[in-house]
């Protein structure tokens, strides 16, 4: 029995908080204890059941295969396809993303991330209006007024309020929670709303109108508003508007409540406009609550590589971007892809059934540590080492800050980056072989 190793300040690779104060005890090459992480991060770092061997589907059944065989079969699938989709990326490192983009370019595919079922509308909103934001430490040190709109950090980003927002203490916010006004806007009460100073319940799908109403009030044009907007009384709206306007430093955090509801990207466009307008009265920032720990990262890497942060079509050799046409759900809904590589995401679980059905009739390659519904539809399954636990790498926090994930324990499995490199090598090999045959 060897001595336990204590690793301090490890970075959690679960949600967009990217907490980097995690202390991990490792004994006999396994994680034995995790401190400071929330339930979600602890569970990930402690580890649980996962796949150990690559598999290739033969006669309808997944049978064990070697990594080289899996890489070759994956390469065959991708090369045979005229328009393969390479989707996911949110729960792996930037280093893997770089290889993935190279692969998408090489095979002429469409590369998209889970943003398109999450904060894709936020990206589109940002393309319309820009993003008036800041790092999380600015909120911690300065914010006296915080709004959570259409998000529930108590369940989705458990340590957010303590580390960065409601309950954090900073240079200009030494009183922490007591010195702050917390406003929650949602269609129902949640664990987050229970800790709010003000809870504004709105009618589902009325976010756009309510934001517009607030903008009117803030611009001093409240008299044109009806008595009720989105189920909220005008007096209550006026109260919220006044609170926002009188903030010393306000921050709006928003989530899937507005990206997934009626209006989608228009809601974000409006929220960004609201914050831009608030800046003529006081200091205000806004930030999307990115769900997965590195959905921000794939967006950054894809943007600096191709010019666009998601839904990039490389089929013609030059990047082409048009969400509504080139996003994963569009392509599958129209049955416009003829192969798919799903990595670090579970498309079958998280897409509408009719959309995911598009995967049932095409060859699918899965790269993931864990068996999940996508495995059921996959033709090649490649298990990988976990970034942040078994592999070092880079990830981007919800505010755009890049951190380096640690390696805590060894793994016999290859990293996503190595797997993609293996597939790339097979692609080159196969191409060379075809070229030689043609000669």
């Amino acid at each position, binding site marked *: 029995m060897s001595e336990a190793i204590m690793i301090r*300040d490890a970075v959690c690779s679960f949600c967009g908080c990217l907490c980097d104060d995690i202390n991990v005890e490792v004994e006999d090459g396994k994680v034995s204890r995790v401190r400071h992480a929330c339930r979600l991060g602890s569970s990930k770092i402690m580890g649980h059941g996962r796949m150990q061997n690559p598999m290739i589907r033969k006669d309808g059944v997944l049978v064990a295969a070697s990594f080289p065989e899996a890489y070759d079969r994956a390469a065959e699938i991708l090369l045979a396809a005229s328009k393969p989709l390479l989707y996911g990326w949110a729960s792996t490192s930037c280093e893997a993303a770089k290889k993935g983009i190279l692969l998408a370019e090489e095979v002429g595919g469409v590369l998209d991330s889970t943003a398109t079922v999450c904060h894709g509308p936020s990206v589109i909103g940002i393309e319309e209006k820009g993003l008036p934001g800041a*790092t999380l430490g600015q909120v911690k040190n*300065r914010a006296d007024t915080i709004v959570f709109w259409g998000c529930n950090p108590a369940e989705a980003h458990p340590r957010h309020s303590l580390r960065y927002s409601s309950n954090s*203490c900073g240079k200009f916010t030494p009183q922490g929670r007591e010195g702050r006004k917390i406003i929650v806007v949602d269609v129902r009460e949640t664990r987050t709303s229970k800790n709010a100073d003000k809870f504004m319940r709105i009618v589902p799908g009325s976010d756009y109108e309510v934001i517009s109403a607030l903008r009117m009030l803030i611009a001093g044009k409240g008299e044109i508003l009806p008595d009720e907007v989105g189920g909220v009384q005008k007096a209550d709206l006026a109260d919220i508007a006044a609170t926002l306007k009188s903030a010393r430093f306000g921050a709006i955090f928003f989530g899937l409540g507005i990206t997934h509801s009626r209006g989608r990207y228009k809601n974000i466009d409006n929220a960004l406009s609201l914050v831009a307008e608030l800046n003529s009265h006081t200091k205000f920032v806004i930030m999307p609550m990115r769900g997965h720990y590195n959905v921000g990262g794939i967006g950054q890497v894809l*943007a*600096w590589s191709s*010019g666009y942060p998601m839904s990039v079509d490389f089929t013609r050799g*030059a990047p082409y971007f048009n969400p509504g046409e080139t996003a994963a759900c569009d392509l599958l809904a129209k049955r416009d892809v003829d192969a798919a590589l799903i990595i670090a995401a579970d498309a079958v679980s998280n897409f509408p059934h009719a959309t995911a059905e598009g995967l049932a009739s095409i060859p699918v390659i899965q790269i993931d540590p864990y068996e999940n519904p996508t495995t059921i539809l996959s033709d090649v399954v490649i298990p990988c080492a976990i970034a942040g636990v078994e592999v070092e790498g880079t990830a981007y926090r919800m505010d755009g*800050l890049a*951190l380096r994930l640690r390696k805590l324990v060894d793994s016999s499995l290859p990293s996503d980056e190595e797997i993609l490199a293996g597939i790339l090598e097979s692609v080159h090999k196969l191409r060379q072989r075809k070229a030689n045959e043609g000669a």
Partner: protein
Amino acid sequence: MIIRGGIVYDPANGIYGDEMDLFIDKGRMVESAKGEEIDARGLLVMPGGVDAHSHIAGKKVNTGRIMRPDDARLGTQPRTAVCRPSTGYTVPNCYAMGYRYARMGYTTAFEAATPILEARHTHEELEEIPIIDKGALTLFGNNWQVMECVRDKDLSKLAAYVAWGLCSARGYGVKIVNPGGGEAWGFGTNVKGINDAVPNFDVTPAEIIRGLAEANEMLRLPHSIHLHFNNLGKPGNYTTAIETLDMLKDIKPSRMRQVVHVAHMQFSAYGGTSWRDFESKAPVIADYFNCHSHATMDMGQLLFGSATTMTADAPLEYGNARLTHNKWSNHDIELEESSGVVPMAYFRKMLVNAVQWAIGLELALLVKDPWKVLMTTDHPNGSPFVNYPEVITLLMSRPKREAEMATLHDQVPKRTTLGSIEREMDWTDIAIMTRAAPARILGLEDKGHLGPGADGDVSVYDLRPEEVDTSQDHVLVKKSLATAKYTIKGGVVVSKEGQILATPPGRTFWVDAAVPQLEADRLMVDLEEKFARYYSVQMANYAVQDAYLPHGKAILAGLPILSEVA
């Protein structure tokens, strides 16, 4: 490699258009060598271009890309056997950045401003930019630790922090942008002048600038402080420029160089009291530079057409957005800085833009010594770098300037003296302003010249300097400068007649400055408190790790370490 018979301009070594052969061996200029022969007979040959101020990598740049898919659609080029795809005009993707600089004959470019906390991102992007050598300047002007040291007049702790900050960010030099104003912007305000106290911090911008200048010289850094003035972009701001420069003139440089390099001087050479009576004060500024030797500048030339403004001067960007009703991104960085990104377009018929265009040129033409003026557009704030040939030909050709001025708003001649300037720059001037001077100003000893030991970075243009009239034939000159006949990087032909032939990775220069352990320990007490109480990350995860600089090159600097005398 032998570059045969070129008409060589190597001002740093006193060569002004001599016909000579050049030799490269193992990536460096040598007295003699064998190998591949490049026929440059009669053609213009210069060291590879050095861009000392450009926004090429990091969060701001990527924010520009993400918010401007409209820009990405321009300049789209598909993948080739050698090249990754290119996209973007004002905010190119990383690959386009490298290929386009190389095609123009540039071989080194420096990112103008990086916050320490987000330097990891900058290095990820720099690594993705092929071919060119790079570096990144590190922002210090709104930093809490800096302001506290300045307030306490603790110069040695300040120097220790600058060294620590440069190491953590793997940065090359000290960048200061709207000092104090970036911190004020944390609560939505700004500073109005260099003696305006920074809210909550009990220091003035003047004190911050002086403190950092002194620390910079104490550490013997290769580059001087690199300064973006307070009040940038405001009518009448030329007084802030003069005031600030004057405040620094007694500081002794620790190396053979300037004490302060002014970023994009054009944006701070404004007269008038509002946009209505806006006018050029370039003559006053140029006069100051002519009478003093402690300062250098880069032009920050504005060109008509599309641009993306991106700067750590966040209040300025907010102002830009409100003025033009445009989309606006803002990003404040805890304990350190602020920044903003706003798309922009400049128009000939808009009087203010036309005068701004004239100011940049006036400055360059009125400052007598070309060693004090770098040719830049503050890419992409004034214009994308691919338009450098336009700026160069404007400097070299009065007829071209006159033709341009005839298309501008008719009030322009009343607001600027450009029309009366006869000076036309020659190849020596241009070689200085785009090669020799940027290298010297940055303190890059092996760049910007072709003497033995220099990096083997050479550009050959399809232009016969002995035959071409650069005043009359400016169309030909511009065309030739846009696409080098050969761009040689480290002794490898990377670009030939616009075709990228090779994409070797470039190196990233950064400065590793030593300070006495005692000072480093004193500093650590402050930093530990800041990380424990204010930062949203742990100190252990803060600094840029080795993994991000696979092609890093550390330049040593710092306080000399006293050693025992035997």
